């Protein structure tokens, strides 16, 4: 192996916060080699992103570099970036030109007021010193290389005219504009749908190998690591706990944290054991008939009909008592809207939702009055996606969890407190946390609090809207196990909305796959995940990265192009 192009030695970063100093990165060392990919894996707060940013010297205040060396070896010159001023000429010459960076959120990293082309032109004129015409020619060539169709025309478009995947392609074109020696990709596909993710990873990997760049891939997803990385460094609490080749890390992990991380990833690769052999009662508890929601489309001011979007298009589903029904789909498939339509926080345009209440009567939810709806909301509860936004930061945990009981009335303060303590115990939290505020808790703990609130009124159905997607993988399986455990104890039925196939496979009995507002396929979870009938489902399943470097799934995946499908 030749000498590394970039070496990081003993890098340490401190964050001076109001209450304490956080040692975000502690003595981190790694090497990047030409043509190889090092994946820096870790859960949120492990310091992986800030490490990557330190390489470009773009750590924001209150972050501070307190030690270490960053050696960049290009053109036979060794340059240590660490002692240089963050905005010095030397560092600026390295940024973009020698080290390219791809961010997680392509919308936020591209300027909305300049065309894509002019942003890449600027890069080229600044670093490569090209004139206007040559820069544009190169830009078009680059956009072609990242497989943007009609590059000459697309260069004159604005960011908002691009889809998420296209934006990330443009971002990649920008990062590659000056032929960098090192490419840093900071969670490049986290904001993207799984099929788009597969395409982007494919593209990045191919370009990297073609150009012989060194790549540092920051990710939390072990599946992505297995698909693209050559070497892996596992980070936890600012330290690299284990470093090695991808095969060693996946098949012979040594550090207990690596083992745990892999175990929780692999656990989600099959159905949960508790679910085996357990099927709900055949009687449906919730029946959805031809539910639809159309946005826009009303007659315009002068009688012109406007463009209408069918967010949910003629969906019929049943949820049996005691069953876990998964709803899977990519962003924009209408799965979240479907959940909101069932609860009527969004009013359906047409269709019916029937709920069989405790007395066995059928209740037409779509026709309920305000007070009837309140009763329905006590039986059918929602768990939110974002554990930070869904808890009122100004109320204590006791107040948050007890709020539904206070509203329902008929409880003394003491009864409420006892019930809250019981609920907190149920979700695995110490009842003593009642006096604390949400900011004192981690994402996983907050999600537990959200679950406790959902359970406060003894519900029968829980709709979990991406309830685990904001959580780290190890926490994710804990929360799923918690939900399964609660289900056993309280006889609940779940509608589990998710974009994550593995979570649904682990948790659900039946799965409905949604695409562009329609349900394309409904079936048992293991069938959907192994032998789906619909072409779209097949493409979706095959795009999910496989956390095993010996069996890369993405290399032989099926692609789905809806425009080539015969319309039904």
């Amino acid at each position, binding site marked *: 192996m030749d000498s590394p192009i970039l070496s990081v030695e003993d890098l340490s970063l401190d964050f001076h916060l109001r209450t*304490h100093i956080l040692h975000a990165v502690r003595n981190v060392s790694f090497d990047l080699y030409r043509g190889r990919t090092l994946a820096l894996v870790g859960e949120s707060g492990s310091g992986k992103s800030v490490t990557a940013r330190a390489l470009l010297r773009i750590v924001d205040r209150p972050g501070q570099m307190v030690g270490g060396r960053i050696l960049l070896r290009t053109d036979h010159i060794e340059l240590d970036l660490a002692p240089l001023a963050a905005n010095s000429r030397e560092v600026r010459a390295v940024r973009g030109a020698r080290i390219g960076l791809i961010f997680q959120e392509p919308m936020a990293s591209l300027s909305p007021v300049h065309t894509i082309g002019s942003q890449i032109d600027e890069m080229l004129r600044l670093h490569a010193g090209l004139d206007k015409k040559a820069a544009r020619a190169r830009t078009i060539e680059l956009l072609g290389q990242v497989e943007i169709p009609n590059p000459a025309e697309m260069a004159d478009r604005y960011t908002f005219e691009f889809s998420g995947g296209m934006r990330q392609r443009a971002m990649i074109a920008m990062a590659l504009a000056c032929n960098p020696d090192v490419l840093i990709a900071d969670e490049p596909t986290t904001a993207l749908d799984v099929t788009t993710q597969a395409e982007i990873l494919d593209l990045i990997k191919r370009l990297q190998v073609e150009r012989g760049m060194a790549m540092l891939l920051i990710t939390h997803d072990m599946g992505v690591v297995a698909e693209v990385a050559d070497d892996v460094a596992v980070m936890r609490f600012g330290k690299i706990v284990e470093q090695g080749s991808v095969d060693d890390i996946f098949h012979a992990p040594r550090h207990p944290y690596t083992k745990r991380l892999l175990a929780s990833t692999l656990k989600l690769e099959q159905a949960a054991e508790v679910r085996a052999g357990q099927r709900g009662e055949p009687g449906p508890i919730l029946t959805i008939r031809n539910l639809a929601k159309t946005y826009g489309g009303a007659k315009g001011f002068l009688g012109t009909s406007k463009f209408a979007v069918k967010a949910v298009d003629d969906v019929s589903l049943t949820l049996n008592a005691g069953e876990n029904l998964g709803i899977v789909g990519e962003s924009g498939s209408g799965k979240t809207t479907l959940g909101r339509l069932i609860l009527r926080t969004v009013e359906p345009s047409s269709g019916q939702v029937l709920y069989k209440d405790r007395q066995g009567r059928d209740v037409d939810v779509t026709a309920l009055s305000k007070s009837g709806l309140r009763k329905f909301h006590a039986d059918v509860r929602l768990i939110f996606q974002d554990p930070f936004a869904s808890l009122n930061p100004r109320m204590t945990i006791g107040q948050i969890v007890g709020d539904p009981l206070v509203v329902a009335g008929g409880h003394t303060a003491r009864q409420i407190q006892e019930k809250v303590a019981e609920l907190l115990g149920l979700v695995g939290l110490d009842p003593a946390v009642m006096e604390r505020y949400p900011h004192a808790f981690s994402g996983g703990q907050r999600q537990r609090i959200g679950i406790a609130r959902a359970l406060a009124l003894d519900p029968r159905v829980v709709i979990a809207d991406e309830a685990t997607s904001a959580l780290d993988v190890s926490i994710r399986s804990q929360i799923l196990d918690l939900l399964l455990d609660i289900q056993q104890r309280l006889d609940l039925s779940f509608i589990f909305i998710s974009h994550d196939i593995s979570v649904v496979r682990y948790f659900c009995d039946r799965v409905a796959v949604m695409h562009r507002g329609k349900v394309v396929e409904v079936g048992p979870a293991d069938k959907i995940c192994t032998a789906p009938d619909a072409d779209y489902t097949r493409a979706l399943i095959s795009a999910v990265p496989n956390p095993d470097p010996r069996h890369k799934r993405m290399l032989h995946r099926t692609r789905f192009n809806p425009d080539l499908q015969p319309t039904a």
Partner: protein
Amino acid sequence: MTMTPSLDDAVLEDGPAISGLKPGLAPTSDAAAGQWTLIARKFLAQKLAVFCGGVILALYLVAALAEFLAPGLPDTSRAQFTYAPPQSIGLFTPEGTFQPHIKGYKVEIDQEALRRTFVVDDSIVVPIGFFVEGPAYKFWGLFESNRHLMGPLDPTQPMYLLGADRLGRDLLSRLIYGTRISMSIGLIGVCLSLMLGVVLGSISGYFGGWIDTVVQRIIEVVSAMPTIPLWLGLAAAIPLTWSPVQVYFVITVIVSLLGWTGLAREVRGRFFALRNEDFVTAAKLDGSSERRVIFRHILPSLTSHILAVVTLAVPSMIIAETSLSFLGVGLKAPVVSWGVLLQDAQNIRSISTAPWLLIWPSLAVVIAVLSFNFFGDGLRDAADPYES
């Protein structure tokens, strides 16, 4: 690849590495700290805002204790001391003994211009002291006293630390009395604006739709009015027979009737943002009524912002009072306010002979307005302690 030898039996750390801000100092925790504790901590970290808060506090103390702090009464005039210049305080008499004192004046008459000029007469030493007896006053109109914080030991002697005006009245005393009126007109006006702004803003923001449209159009119409002519018009409608106190009250109402729009917009914007927050949806799904959602969940998230906006609205009220009085349509003598004091500095002649008449009242306005602005800015930055 480097590898730590003891990897197989490595112990898992159970949290991120942290240490205290200074060696030996344990990291503090704010797990059980509520909204206001967090806001206070964030606010106290801003030195300038805290300092300005102190200045504001001092100004209100001055306003509260005006009678005691002022060396004299605001209305006592002495014709022989017209436009007398400021005196300075000396600590040692010419004989070398320690005695805080001010120098007396000697009047010289310029025979050519027939103008009187004051020169400091070193031979007259007026001893001064603290907690002296002086002109009698009624503190807050409640009880009589004649103690003053500072004054000449002999009450008949003149003391003009900031100079005198056209009628030989003490500017310092007038400025101190003016503080009471000028600083309180801001508060009362803002309280009225606050009520209008919060009520209309919340209604507009929570319900949206046509209600929002109506309220927003009203706001636009009100804020499109040219303020000064409107004030002039409204002030002109006040009957001349009314007492200064009545006039004062009506002026605050006029100023606040036009000042609520900014606050209403701010509240509406916050409502719009909060209405779609997950925790508000959660509250609705918990069965909370609309009233409960507004008062239990949305408004508590707004109070700190409202407080900040209110603080930023006070200076505009002070400025409004000053401009109105300066133009002669707001408060009028015998009421003393900073604006009324500035009326005396309306012509070139008085500015050239007695520049202190312009400098000190303007300085008071500038200090008060700037303090409120910096204080309000700090408050606004601290208002949302949960951001990032």
